C-alpha cells in the first residue's frame, strides 16, 4: 500500500503529493482497505481541474489515527465512465450519485444512480424537477404505496418518504431528499470573506452549528498554518459538548412524545432549555451561532462563566439522572423500544454509518477517539458502544453520552487556565492560505463525524469545498431499519435517528 498518502486530521497536504493512480488501482486499493472495520470512508469527491476531472478519496484509519488519501484522474476529453464501487460497499452510493449528478459521470453497475439532491447545475437528462424522482415501484394489486411528505405535520423539515407496504408491514422505504438544497458548497466558493463562510457553515445544519463551524474553522486554520492556543481549543470542546447534551436530551424528550409518554417528554423537555440557554449566556445565541470563528473567538470563556456552567451541570445531572433512570427502566418504554428497528453491525458498516447510528450497532466510530481535534487530546475519550442495534440501544448511547459529556465538561473547566487570553477571530487580510493544498477537517458533532475538505488553487484561494454531514449516510440506516417493520413504528424510528435534512441536502 505504498501508493497512499498518509496524513492526519487537520494536516494539509500538497495536491501534487497525492498519488494519482489508474481507476483499477484506485478501486482495488480502496476496496482492499475497507475490508477491515478499522477503516472507513471520510470523503470521496470529484472536482474539475485543468487536466480533467480529479477523484479524491480519503479513508480514515481509526487505529493509527491517520487518514489515507488517494486520487484518480479522468483526463479532459475522455469518456466520463467508470465502474461503480457500490456493489462492493453500499457506502459509495451517495458519493457516486453526487458525482454523477454534478459532473455527469456514469458509474456502471450502480443500480441506484438517482439524483441525490437536485442541484441546479444537474447533469442528468430528463430529470429537471424534484418531482421527477424515479421511485422504486412494484406492479401488483397486493401491495400499496404510502407517500409521506415533503410537508409534514409538526415542525420537521421537508423530506419525502415512500413506503411500499404489505398491509401494516413495510417492505421497502425510499427516502427522497433534496428539498432543502441551498447550494451551500457553491456559496462557499462565491463568498470570499471568512465571516461569510463561517456564517454559511453555521447554517449547514442549524442544530449542529458548533460542529460545522468548528470543522470549517479548523480547515481554514490548518490551511493558514495557524497555531491555536490551548485555551481556545478547550473552549471549543465545551461548546461542542454542550451542544451534544442539549440535542441528545431533546431527542430523548421527542422519543417520549413518540411513545406518548408524557412525563418523560415534559421532564426532559424542561432540561433542554437551560442547556441551550447557557450557550445564550455565553455568546448571545441559543444555538451558539457566532461563537466559533477561525483563529479565535469574540466570546472568551471566563471564570464567571465557569461558575455558571458548573452550577448548571450540578443541577442538570441531578434532575437528568432521576428522569432518565425512571424512563430507561419503565417496562412500557422498554417494550415499546426494544427490538424495533434493529440493524446489524454489518449493515451499519456497509452503509458507512457514523456517530450514534454506528455506535448503537457495535461499530466504534467516534472521531473524538479516532482522530482527536481541538482539546480532545486531553480527554482520552472512550466511545459508548452498544451492540443491540435497536431503538433502545440508540436511547442508551444518547443517555451515556450525556453523562460522559457532563464529565468532560467538568474536567475541561478544571484544567483550563483562565489567566490565558484568547485571540479575537482572525481577519481576512491577516491570513494567507497554503497554495495547491488540500485539508481534511473532521469533528464529531452530536450526530457523528462532520467532514469538511478544502482544496486551494495556485493563488491560495479555496477552489473546492466539500462538506459531508453525518446524515448523508445515516439516512440509509433509517431506510434499512424500517424493513419488515410495522409502518406505525416509523415515527419513533425516525426520531431515534433524528437525522438532518438540510445537512444532507446542503
Amino acid at each position, binding site marked *: 500500500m505504498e501508493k497512499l498518502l498518509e496524513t492526519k486530521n487537520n494536516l494539509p497536504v500538497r495536491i501534487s503529493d497525492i498519488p494519482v493512480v489508474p481507476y483499477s488501482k484506485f478501486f482495488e486499493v480502496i476496496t482492499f482497505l475497507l475490508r477491515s472495520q478499522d477503516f472507513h470512508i471520510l470523503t470521496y469527491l470529484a472536482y474539475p481541474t485543468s487536466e480533467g476531472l480529479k477523484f479524491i478519496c480519503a479513508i480514515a484509519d481509526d487505529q493509527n489515527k491517520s487518514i489515507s488519501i488517494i486520487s484518480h484522474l479522468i483526463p479532459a476529453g475522455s469518456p466520463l465512465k467508470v465502474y461503480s464501487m457500490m456493489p462492493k460497499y453500499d457506502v459509495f452510493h451517495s458519493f457516486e450519485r453526487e458525482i454523477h449528478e454534478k459532473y455527469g459521470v456514469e458509474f456502471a453497475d450502480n443500480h441506484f444512480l438517482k439524483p441525490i439532491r437536485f442541484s441546479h447545475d444537474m447533469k442528468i437528462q430528463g430529470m429537471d424537477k424534484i418531482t421527477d424522482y424515479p421511485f422504486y415501484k412494484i406492479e401488483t394489486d397486493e401491495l400499496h404505496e*404510502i407517500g409521506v411528505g415533503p410537508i409534514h*405535520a*409538526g415542525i420537521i423539515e421537508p423530506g419525502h418518504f415512500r413506503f411500499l407496504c404489505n398491509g401494516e408491514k413495510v417492505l421497502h422505504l425510499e427516502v427522497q431528499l433534496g428539498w432543502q438544497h441551498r447550494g451551500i458548497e457553491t456559496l462557499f466558493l462565491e463568498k470570499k470573506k471568512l465571516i461569510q463562510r463561517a456564517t454559511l457553515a453555521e447554517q449547514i445544519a442549524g442544530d449542529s452549528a458548533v460542529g460545522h463551524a468548528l470543522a470549517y474553522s479548523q480547515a481554514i486554520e490548518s490551511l493558514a498554518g495557524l497555531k491555536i492556543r490551548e485555551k481556545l481549543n478547550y473552549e471549543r470542546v465545551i461548546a461542542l459538548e454542550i451542544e451534544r447534551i442539549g440535542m441528545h436530551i431533546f431527542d430523548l424528550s421527542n422519543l417520549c412524545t413518540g411513545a406518548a409518554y408524557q412525563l418523560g417528554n415534559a421532564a426532559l423537555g424542561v432540561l433542554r432549555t437551560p442547556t441551550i440557554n447557557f450557550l445564550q449566556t455565553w455568546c448571545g445565541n441559543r444555538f451558539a451561532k457566532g461563537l466559533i470563528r477561525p483563529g479565535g473567538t469574540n466570546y472568551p470563556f471566563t471564570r464567571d462563566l465557569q461558575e455558571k456552567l458548573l452550577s448548571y451541570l450540578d443541577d442538570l445531572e441531578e434532575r437528568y439522572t432521576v428522569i432518565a433512570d425512571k424512563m430507561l427502566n419503565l417496562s412500557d418504554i422498554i417494550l415499546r423500544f426494544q427490538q424495533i428497528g434493529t440493524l446489524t453491525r454489518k449493515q451499519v458498516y456497509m452503509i458507512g454509518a457514523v456517530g450514534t447510528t454506528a455506535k448503537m450497532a457495535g461499530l466504534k466510530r467516534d472521531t473524538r477517539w479516532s482522530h482527536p481535534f481541538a482539546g480532545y487530546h486531553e480527554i482520552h475519550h472512550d466511545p459508548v458502544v452498544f451492540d443491540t442495534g435497536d431503538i433502545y440501544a440508540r436511547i442508551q448511547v444518547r443517555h451515556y453520552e450525556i453523562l460522559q459529556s457532563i464529565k468532560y465538561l467538568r474536567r475541561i473547566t478544571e484544567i483550563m487556565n483562565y489567566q490565558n487570553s484568547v485571540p479575537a477571530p482572525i481577519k481576512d487580510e491577516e491570513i494567507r492560505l497554503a497554495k495547491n493544498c488540500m485539508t481534511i477537517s473532521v469533528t464529531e458533532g452530536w450526530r457523528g463525524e462532520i467532514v469538511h475538505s478544502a482544496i486551494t488553487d495556485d493563488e491560495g484561494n479555496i477552489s473546492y469545498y466539500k462538506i459531508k454531514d453525518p446524515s448523508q449516510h445515516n439516512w440509509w440506516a433509517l431506510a434499512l431499519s424500517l424493513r419488515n417493520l410495522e*409502518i*406505525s413504528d416509523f*415515527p419513533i424510528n425516525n426520531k431515534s435517528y433524528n437525522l438532518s435534512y438540510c445537512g444532507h441536502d446542503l
Partner: protein
Amino acid sequence: MLAFFLVLICAFLYPGTIDKTKAILSGRKGPKIYQFIFDAWRLLKKGSVYSNSSSFVFQISASVNFACVLTAFLLIPFAGEPSFFSFDGDFVFMLYLLGLGRFILVVAALDVSSGFEGMGANREVLYNALLEPAFFLLMGTLCIFTGHTNFHDIFLSIYENEHIASVIVVITISILILFMFLLIENSRIPTDDPNTHLELTMVHEVMVLDHSGFDLGLIKLTSAFKFAVFGSLICNLVIPGHLALYYKIPLFMVFQFMLAISIGVFESFKPRNKMARNPQYIISISAIAAVLYIVIIIIKSNVV
C-alpha cells in the same frame, strides 16, 4: 329527562378536565376546563371544505355519527331516574348505535381515498371488532346477575342482591372493564394517542383528517359525548338508585369528575402500546369479562 341534561353537562367538561389534569401533571398551567366549549363553538361556526374526490357519504358522515351518539344519550338512565326511553335489550341498541356511527366514519374515511385514512379505518375496525365481546359479556353478566335486560332496571336492582360480596365483585370488575373499554372506544392511550401529529401512528384521528370546520366540530363533540356515555354507565353502577335526588346529583357529578381526572392521570404516566400489541391488549379485556360472566353463572345456578 334529568339524566339527559346531567350527562350533557358532563360531556362538555370531560375533554377539558382530562387536558387540565395532564397539563398540571406535566408542570404546565393548561387551558381552562371549559375551553372545549369555546373550541367546539368556534369550529361549529365555520364552514366545511370537501375534497373533490369525496362523495355525499363523506359529507353526511360527521352529522350521522353525531346523531347516533346523541340518540345513545337518550338511553342512558341516571341512577334510578328513568332515561328518555327504555326497553328490554336497549344496551344492544345503544352499542350498535355507536357502531353505526363508527361505520359511517369508516366509510367516509375510505370515501376520500387517502392512503392514510384507509389505514386508520382498517385499524379502528379491527380494534372495535375485538372490543365488542367485552361489552356484551359484561352486559350479559349484569343481566344474569339482576334478572333484568334493560339499563334502567339493571342499575336500579343491582344493589338489591342479598349476596353483598358478589355485588362488590361484580361492580368492581365491571368498573374496571368499562374503564378500559372507555379508553379504547374513545381512542385514548394505551391503544391510540389523541395528541399525536404523526399520521402513520394514528388510529382514530387519521380517519377524520379530512373533516374540517363544522364537521370537525361535530366530531369533537361526538368524542366528548362518548366519554360522557361510558362515564355515566360507570357512575350508574356506583350510585345506588334508591338514594335521594339531592344526594344523587352531586355524587354523579363528583364521580364523573373523578373519572375524568383518573383518565388524565393514567395518560400522564403510561406510554402507548406498540401497535402490534393492541389486539392482545383488547382481547384481554374480553377475557376478563368472560371470566366474570362464568363466575356469575356458577354463582347464580348454585352449581358450587
